[in-house]
């Protein structure tokens, strides 16, 4: 296994394709035995609120919920930026199992530790 991979996602259902793509690549990564984390910021943090991923669909793409479930089941991590969840009123009680709210320090630690960041 090589360096951890980080995929950044900034969109929610208002831009379904941009919301789904990081999860597609992340899911391919974890099912290729790689360590992958998806870091959600801005509207992207809504993706891990309960019942939200089910609403994110784009013609020609696998529904987000299905990809997200596979990503988590294969060991992928989903981090929601605390600076973005707070103003939206999103707390730990609102988010799905397998995701967590983190701080910028967590992101910096991951990157400083050698993670490779990718925007898709």
């Amino acid at each position, binding site marked *: 296994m090589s360096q951890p991979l980080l995929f950044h996602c900034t969109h929610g259902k208002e831009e379904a394709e941009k919301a789904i793509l990081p999860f*597609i690549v992340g899911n391919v990564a974890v099912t*290729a*035995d790689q360590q992958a984390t998806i870091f959600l910021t801005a509207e992207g943090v809504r993706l891990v609120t309960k019942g939200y991923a089910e609403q994110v669909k784009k013609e020609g793409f696998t529904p987000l919920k299905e990809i997200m479930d596979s990503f988590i089941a294969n060991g992928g991590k989903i981090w929601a930026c605390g600076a973005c969840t707070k103003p939206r009123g999103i707390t730990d009680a609102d988010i799905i199992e397998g995701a967590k709210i983190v701080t910028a320090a967590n992101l910096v630690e991951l990157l400083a530790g050698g993670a490779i960041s990718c925007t898709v």
Partner: protein
Amino acid sequence: MNADKELKASGMACINLTPNIKQAISSMQSSEVLKVFNDDPAAREGVPAWCRLTGHSLIETKEISQTETLFYIQKKIN
């Protein structure tokens, strides 16, 4: 070539092909061979990359038309 298991992956592409190969191979024994049929030409790049990443062996690739391919993947020894 003989295979121990087959995956008919017509219509699968970048989004779900290798995750489905992973799922199929996970229930197999070491050294067993998975035969994968796919009709996405880009898979001829993607499947070898997935094998390099995971350590499974792509032991044969048969291009049976412009788009259709058979992949024979041998599960790695754990």
